[in-house]
């Protein structure tokens, strides 16, 4: 308990003095003062894992007093992880998650969701990185084809496609026909997809691209989707675009889904995933917790730097994280077949699965240049490290940490 008390004291006593003369007398452990949340959170996770109930209570109390979802990064992390730890300790994760998702489904609108996504894309390349890489790979793989069919398995509200449509429209040769089938894995309202479809059709008309739009809603059993259900036809050149999609497939089903994708006979499969591993440690609470904390600390810090402090869009993104954290750490079951998952895996791990049915495709120099040009449009901190020989795909890094992985595959 001793270090907990000193932690308590660290928080209550000021770390720096007001006057200039004592600026040098910062707390001897400034890191501790600044990142107090991770220490208490880790200790709490261990206490829960070790079933030490008085320690659990004490630490949950501390977190409860210090946390705030509207404060600085430490306070936010404390707040969101506190919810998950509390649910874990009191076994209320499933109920809690259910309540949260039902509220979201009721209150989200096309406008509000769209605002969040667009604002995020404006201030951070977190999502646009994957879009640019994938579009580049798709265009190159489908070069010369006249009937294109893109299967979009993502929740990006089609924000990826306008630039692709533009590229198709400005090709020197005949503009191909594009069919876009969006496979929505979340409980997304029909009305939202309808709105999106109308906008896409309008945009395609403007671009002069012959266009068809379809939606496949609410199917979690991705592995069981057939060519017919997806509207795949013999004479089409298929591209499958999976952005943040594979993580949503329940762990048991992932191999099956890869096989299903292969059976569609696509010309290219583009995969974009966040670089975190919540899967291999899923039976080890503390290990999984540490990885969660590592990833979301990065993410929250990134959000704090990219958005203004009073941003509602950032708040929405943080709340989404909050739900994911509860899902991963505090929900029982949910890894079984048919359940929607949040269990991310790293690029290397996805590679292992994908290599069973596909071969990796290197991004051309043009595509890499496009990505680099994209990153230049954002604040400093983002970079694309040079691809190592053994690497598959590209890694987006923020402050030297890999955060998003993009890759392309062919059968």
């Amino acid at each position, binding site marked *: 308990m001793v270090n907990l008390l000193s932690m308590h004291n660290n928080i209550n006593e*000021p770390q720096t003095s*007001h*006057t200039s003369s004592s600026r040098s007398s910062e707390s001897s452990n400034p890191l501790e003062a600044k990142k107090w949340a991770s220490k208490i959170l880790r200790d709490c996770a261990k206490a829960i894992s070790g079933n030490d109930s008085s320690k659990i209570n004490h630490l949950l*109390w501390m977190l409860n007093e*210090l946390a705030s979802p509207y404060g600085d990064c430490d306070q936010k992390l404390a707040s969101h992880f506190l919810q998950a730890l*509390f649910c874990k300790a009191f076994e209320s994760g499933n109920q809690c998650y259910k*309540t949260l998702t039902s509220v979201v489904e009721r209150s989200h609108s096309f406008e509000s969701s769209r605002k969040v996504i667009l604002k995020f894309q404006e201030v951070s390349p977190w999502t646009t990185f994957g879009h640019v890489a994938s579009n580049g790979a798709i265009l190159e793989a489908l070069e010369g084809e006249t009937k294109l069919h893109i299967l979009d398995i993502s929740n990006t509200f089609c924000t990826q496609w306008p630039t692709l449509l533009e590229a198709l429209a400005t090709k020197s040769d005949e503009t191909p026909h594009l069919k876009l089938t969006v496979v929505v894995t979340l409980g997304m309202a029909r009305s939202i997809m309808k709105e999106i479809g109308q906008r896409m059709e309008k945009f395609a008309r403007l671009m002069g691209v012959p266009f068809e739009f379809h939606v496949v809603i609410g199917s979690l059993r991705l592995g069981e989707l057939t060519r017919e259900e997806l509207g795949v036809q013999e004479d089409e050149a298929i591209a499958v675009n999976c952005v943040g999609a594979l993580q949503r497939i329940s762990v048991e089903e992932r191999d099956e889904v890869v096989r299903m994708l292969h059976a569609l006979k696509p010309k290219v499969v583009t995969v974009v995933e966040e670089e975190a591993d919540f899967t291999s440690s899923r039976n080890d609470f503390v290990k999984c917790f540490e990885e969660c904390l590592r990833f979301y600390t990065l993410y929250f810090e990134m959000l704090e730097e990219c958005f203004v402090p009073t941003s509602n869009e950032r708040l929405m993104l943080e709340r989404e994280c909050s739900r994911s954290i509860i899902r991963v750490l505090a929900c029982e079951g949910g890894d079984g077949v048919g359940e929607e998952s949040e269990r991310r895996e790293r690029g290397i791990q996805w590679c292992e699965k994908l290599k069973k049915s596909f071969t990796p495709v290197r991004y051309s120099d043009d595509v890499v240049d496009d990505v680099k040009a994209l990153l230049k449009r954002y604040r400093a901190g983002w970079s694309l490290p040079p691809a190592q020989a053994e690497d598959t795909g590209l890694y987006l890094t923020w402050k030297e940490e890999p955060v998003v992985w993009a890759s392309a595959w062919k059968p």
Partner: protein
Amino acid sequence: MKGEFEVVHGAFDFLQPQEQWDCNHIVFSSSAPNNVSVNALPRPMIDSQSNATEKFEVSEWMDHVARQFSETAATTNSFQTESAVSTAENFMLHTLGDCRPQKTARRHYGINGNGNVGEIQWNGQQTNSIYEGSRVMNRLDEHGLNLLTLLLECAVAISVENLSEAHRMVLELTQMASPYGPSCAERVVAYFSMAMSSRIMNSWLGICTPLINHKSVHGAFQFFNNISPFIKFAHFTSNQAILEAFHQRDRVHIIDLDIMQGLQWPALFHILATRIEGPPHVRMTGMGSSMELLVETGKQLSQFAKRLGLSFEFHPIAKKFGDNEVSNMVQIRRGETVAVHWLQHSLYDATGPDWKTMRLLQQLSPRVITLVEQDITPGGSFLDRFVGTLHYYSTIFDSLGASLSIDDPTRYRVEHGLLYREINNMLAIGGPTRSGEEKFNHWRSELARNCFVQVPMSSNSMAQAQLILNMFPPTHGYSLIQGDGTLKLGWKDTSLYTASSWTSHASV
């Protein structure tokens, strides 16, 4: 500015002991006793910038709710039904009923006026005040109104200890309300729901001791001082009363019960240093929670005093005024004039047990006690406190929203760093094992009852207050009222801070 302190026996209005302030009448009513001069600032013509009056004022809506609630509570008690549950049920039905889908009217049975068991007849006012309130609110913010309604329902659930239902509602609220939005109602709900979430969690954990980051709180307090007139009002009216008490005294001692960064004192030092009869020797005892912070404050004040050529000593005491050892630690020297200053807040318990504080005050027999109270009561049931707190803070949020933009970073710092902390603390009081001490409802009443005599705030104090208000647009939103010897500053119809000053019999 000559401050005249009339020390004439019986020459100032010797006020009767204050009647117990009705804690539910949070609205400062205009039906004041005769000897009160209602001196509100004249409201200027509505100009193009005053769209404050067009906005949904959460506090107006809360006026209706608070009034309805107090009537419901009063009627309930008079029939002696099971108090907590019934008050809650009735509150739900009569106050919130109109906002929810029509239900069949529930009948309440109990002991009616004739002493017989039968259906309770409620007095006339069946028309639902929320409905009335809603007409007022038609202009805007249905979303905010829905959130507030859900918030109140949640508070009722907590008050009847239905924690799991309350938790479910809180989860909903915390997903739907944003503290950064254009709607003051939504901001208020965002912070209140987090405070309730915190309280529910504490209830489940069975622990309730506060953990305060004092440095951060002091910083937020300073921001509040910058963007809102309430703190300056407290400072300057108190300084005026102290100045008057120090008239022609050359050795003075100020005891500040929670000095924080001592923002108040430089202005007083300035006046003392330049007063006609020459500067006094000033001793200051600053109390607070952290010795390190107190020492720092002392340093700053000493440096300032030195620059003014003011002879100054500072004594830090890192204790609560009501703690046992304090009476030994506070040293009063022979011949010095003592002023005790107390600017009350709801961030944390600054003074400890009230009866001990009172006892020490009596012991010290100061020449003047300057007291600034928030017009909010810590006592009563959870629901009492909740409705009162919601009314109080939604008024402050309204006042900030009227002059500051939606994404003003200072506004955010004040709302999150200060107001949210107060809300959190207020709602946690009475939670499991929170300091079990009895708190006085109104210090003014208690002082009057305990051998202290009120010294009416002078016209100079009033003038100070008016000057301060002029610094803060839109002045037509603030209401400054002089009455019962006190000065009250509020927003629209709601009084928020009351400044008063007192002297002990012994020193008169």
